[in-house]
């Protein structure tokens, strides 16, 4: 390039421009490439491989046997149903507990909201294992909740709060709540308050303003958060494995057991494919609902 005369720089030919353009495009790709390669090699590649494996039998010929097994074995079906039920319950509890928090945070002045937000961020940043352990301590037979309830005379016998579904749901709700509150709060912050004043000035009562104006405007963040929570629950492993105490079996746990104990990759991958397809479908639904909303608004 150093041999180029000044006029040539001032008016480059179309060929020069095209070359420079190509050069730029390669440079941009080169910047993204390392990240892309890492994800391709560690995530996309192996999973595609496993997904292929799920369609093969022991001899290597094409079969749907692994999938038939999922839907024929009642034990597997039961696990799928448990996963679905627990995930729905957790999403539901996150909705009714999380919405008021995000709503209140949205009302507060920014500085106060930032302070209160720490109550959401701190658990969000704390290790899931630590939080699950805390709930194990709280919910155990002689745990804090049981001794507390006994001391104030509400119960005589300790309640079974752990190693069952209710313990799992309690622990998972605690872990998932920030995932709902944070996106919802961001949406609520961005709502233009003059719409509310407009509604009120036209004579709508506060509840009417909330349901007719505020709630629909908050729906994109709310639905997005709910779908995300639901999807995270579907593939959740740590909390059900520990708080469920072996009595609550979820998808992630049979995948782990199939590999660690039985080394049956075909079975594990077919369940994995089912999990992935469900995840993508729910995320797509969330995206679709949000898009539809935005067009309405």
């Amino acid at each position, binding site marked *: 390039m150093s041999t180029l005369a000044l006029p040539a720089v001032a008016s480059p030919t179309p060929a020069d421009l095209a070359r420079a353009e190509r050069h730029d495009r390669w440079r941009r790709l080169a910047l993204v490439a390392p990240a892309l390669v890492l994800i391709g090699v560690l995530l996309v590649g192996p999973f595609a491989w496993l997904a292929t494996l799920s369609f093969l039998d022991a001899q290597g010929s094409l079969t749907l046997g692994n999938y038939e097994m999922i839907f024929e074995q009642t034990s597997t079906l039961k696990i799928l149903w448990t996963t679905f039920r627990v995930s729905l319950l957790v999403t539901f509890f996150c909705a009714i507990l999380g919405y008021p928090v995000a709503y209140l945070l949205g009302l507060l002045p920014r500085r106060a909201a930032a302070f209160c937000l720490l109550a959401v961020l701190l658990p969000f*940043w704390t290790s899931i294992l630590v939080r699950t352990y805390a709930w194990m301590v709280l919910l155990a037979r002689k745990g804090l909740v049981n001794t507390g309830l006994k001391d104030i005379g509400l119960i005589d016998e300790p309640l079974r709060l752990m190693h069952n579904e209710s313990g799992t749901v309690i622990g998972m709700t605690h872990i998932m709540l920030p995932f709902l509150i944070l996106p919802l709060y961001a949406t609520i912050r961005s709502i233009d308050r003059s719409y509310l004043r407009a509604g009120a000035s036209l004579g709508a009562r506060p509840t009417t303003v909330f349901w007719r104006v505020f709630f629909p405007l908050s729906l994109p963040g709310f639905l997005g958060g709910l779908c995300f929570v639901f999807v995270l629950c579907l593939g959740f492993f740590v909390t059900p494995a520990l708080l469920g105490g072996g009595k609550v079996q979820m998808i992630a746990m049979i995948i782990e057991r199939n590999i660690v104990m039985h080394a049956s990759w075909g079975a594990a991958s077919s369940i994995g494919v089912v999990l992935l397809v469900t995840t993508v479908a729910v995320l797509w639904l969330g995206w679709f609902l949000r898009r539809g909303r935005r067009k309405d608004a």
Partner: protein
Amino acid sequence: MEDSWIPWHRRLPLILFAGLVMLLLVLPSLIVIPMSFSAGDYLEFPPREWSLRWYRAYFDSSLWGEATTISFIAGLSTALLASILGTAAAWGLRLMGRGAPPLLMMLLTMPLTVPVILTAIGIFYLYVRLDLVNSMTGLVLAHTMLALPFVLILVLSRLQGFDLNQVRVAESLGAKPAKAFFLVVLPQIRFAVIAGAVLAFLTSFDEVIVALFITGGGKSTITRVMFTSLRDQVDPTIASVSSMLILLSVVLVVIFQFFEGRGQKAAPAARKE
């Protein structure tokens, strides 16, 4: 309160309910801290006698010590690697602007959307063949992949307000693209990069499932040791480990918020290109 036509006492139920939920969010993990100082063989709240017994148990144990070292090395390496790869990718995407294929962003954020259990079995399957199981290299690569999207999203959102004309000026004055990036761009996004690195460190440090599959024995991470101990028989040492992990999270969240806030103040208001 912005919509002030509603008297505050009508909001009282909301304030009480939301306050209670926030309390329930914070308190459970904090309860572990006083319990970790109890002197008895069993953890109790409030402890009848106080001692540092379980902290001593942690520091005397070679199992916990080794696991802590592994976790720190993995976390720091992940933070370094993920912030380099993530920042480069974010800069590449920014340069592409609207021309960036949507598929690219989807691929780059995939580690966030794919259930971790699936990522874990995929990596395990690959590592068995590459003989990377139980290796630090394998652990760091896997964690870097998981942490990449966080750095990417943080840095990219800061770059959205960046005026690309600054780079054009630098390059027209003779700076090579790399030089222009390090002299003009990086100083303006450095806080986002640091915040991303902090998040990447924590992602690695707290990660359980991948570590469960690809580490073991003397190469276990701290979370893996914790998980096995919680599943099999609960060792009260976990209370002291948990308290220290909570302290670490608090320190990191403060650092993160500091850099996040600094970055937002430092970045000029988003300009049109």
